[in-house]
């Protein structure tokens, strides 16, 4: 579904050059639920932005659903993003002066669906997140958890193959976070690949696979944990 090989991303200013990602390799298979963890500044968000075609990379190779992203122009990237990728942000990023129906409608408009198809998809997506009855409400009238559900509905409406979630529960209390997480698990169970950046080890543990990023590189978390435990003379099994 998503394959990056030897990818690098360098930010340059007049004064300094920052290597955000280097020798970055990752392969996410279709249907996987992958949690991406790592300390602040490790390159998680850069990775997610590149994965979501919101940023370009400096070198290496990136294939999404077998499409080579390198060299695509803005229009092709936007189309690819619109068709294959759904986004969920920590801050929800709903458009405040559009009601829920119109918020979910945004990606469908760019997809060029006709009005009937858009309505069907919007209602289905809002039903899926349990907010079908509040279509005419505005984001400010909802709780944080409900707003994130709308954002999920918006991401789902276009039936993307890949859902990118950046700290989706970061702004929610634990109750709401649990609800959102359960929803993501349902979506994954229905076949959508999910790549979720999180700081929360409890959430990460619920993913099928964890990818840890340190200093702009993927670090094999299992291997590191094993080595750490070994240094403490504890066997992984007993740990």
């Amino acid at each position: 579904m998503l394959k990056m090989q030897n990818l690098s991303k360098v930010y340059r200013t007049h004064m300094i050059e920052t290597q955000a990602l280097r020798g970055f390799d990752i392969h996410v298979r279709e249907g996987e639920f992958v949690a991406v963890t790592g300390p602040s500044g490790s390159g998680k968000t850069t990775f997610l932005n590149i994965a979501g075609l919101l940023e370009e990379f400096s070198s290496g190779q990136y294939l999404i659903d077998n499409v080579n992203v390198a060299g695509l122009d803005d229009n092709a990237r936007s189309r690819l993003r619109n068709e294959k990728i759904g986004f969920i942000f920590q801050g929800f990023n709903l458009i405040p002066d559009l009601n829920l129906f119109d918020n979910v409608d945004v990606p469908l408009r760019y997809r060029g669906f006709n009005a009937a198809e858009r309505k069907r998809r919007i209602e289905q997506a809002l039903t899926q997140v349990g907010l079908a009855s509040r279509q005419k409400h505005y984001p400010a009238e909802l709780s944080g958890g409900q707003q994130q559900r709308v954002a999920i509905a918006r991401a789902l409406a276009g039936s993307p193959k890949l859902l990118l979630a950046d700290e989706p529960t970061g702004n929610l209390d634990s109750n709401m976070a649990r609800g959102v997480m359960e929803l993501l698990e349902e979506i994954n169970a229905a076949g959508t690949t999910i790549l979720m950046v999180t700081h929360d080890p409890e959430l990460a543990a619920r993913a099928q696979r964890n990818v840890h990023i340190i200093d702009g590189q993927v670090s094999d978390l299992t291997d590191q944990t094993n080595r750490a435990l070994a240094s403490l003379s504890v066997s992984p099994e007993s740990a």
Partner: protein
Amino acid sequence: MFRYYLSLGFRSLRRNPVLTTLMVLTLSVGVAASITTLTILHAMSGDPIPHKSDRLLVPLIDNQPVDNPSEDGEPPEQLTYMDAMALWEKKGAFRQTPLYGLGPAIDSGRADLPPFFTEGVAVSRDFFAMFDAPVRHGGAWSEEDDRRGAQVAVISSSLSERLFDKGVDPVGRKLRISDHDFSIVGVLAPWNPVPKMYRLIGGERFDSSEDVFLPMRTAIALEMDRNGSMDCSSDPPAPGFKGILQSECNWVQYWVEVEKTADRAAYADYLAAYVNEQKALGRFGKPINNRLRNLREWMDFLGVVDDDTRTSTWLAFAFLLVCLVNTVGLLLAKFSARPGEIGVRRALGATRGDVFRQYLTEAAVIGIVGALIGLLLTWAALAYIRSMDEGMALVTRLDGGMLLMAVGLSVAASVFAGLLPTWRACQVVPALQLKSQ
């Protein structure tokens, strides 16, 4: 997609209402100033009879004495009675008419309507066809009436309605004009050519057409006084009306209509031949100094559109430019407050082109609202000008063309003002905005 952008544009008006109000007002005031002055300029400089304005000609002859030429070398702007009548009798063109202004007194004979003065002109029967005067009842008098100076009259619809009941056809009825009985042969429909092209000198150029039209020879025979200008290079040979008729005083306007534009040169030759003929008889001591201008050239020569009107139009457009610069600033402020939304839309699949179209449409929506308010302001400004100067009534009418022009100007101005802010909006890097939300 355009309808979607349009609906987003209208929704966006509610966001930042203070900024929106400022923008709409700035734009509407600029548009109102421009359209107000443009309406007046347009009406003043408009061609009142475009299909034949190049075939309606004003011939002028220089009868100034050799020792007293005009400063600018131009012949007088009207003809002497002698020349006008000589040219008219020779009928050297397809149609022709002499013309002079009258101030006739109308006596309806009704007790409830005391006698009153009005505006009139003495013309030939060709006048009505030459200037496309619209007829409601009857028509022009006959050639025979012209020849024998019959006491017949064509009157305006407003005079007809004032004298008789509305809807009554007064053709055949008698009317007492300046103490003489006239028979009404025609009633014109309302007629307000702007400017009043057939009488650009000696009358109000932007006033409605006259109430009374009389045959030239009749007015002369009845010695009806001239209501207009006269310039004399020498004293009349005899006192009184008859003396004026024999004088070198220029007071009769003269128009000819040629059948084809190409016939103009032939008429110029004809005019030159007439002058040579008169020279042989001892008139016109100066070398030939004729002029033959068509209607548009005549309007330009007389400066129908005065410099003040042109200057105020330029100033109004300069003011619109200042308004535009302000709108650019306000749009920049409005659009730059929304990088988050742009980031979200980009992330959800909008191309830069989509963002560009959306924001430019939003600017156009401000233009549409600005146009509506601008039209209200224009209407109010024109009404104010009319109330200050009744002579401006005909040139302060907002017509369909100007309405469209106002909307077009406002939308074009707002789109133009929106280009830079929109371009800036398209430069938003979505990745930077999404995290900071």
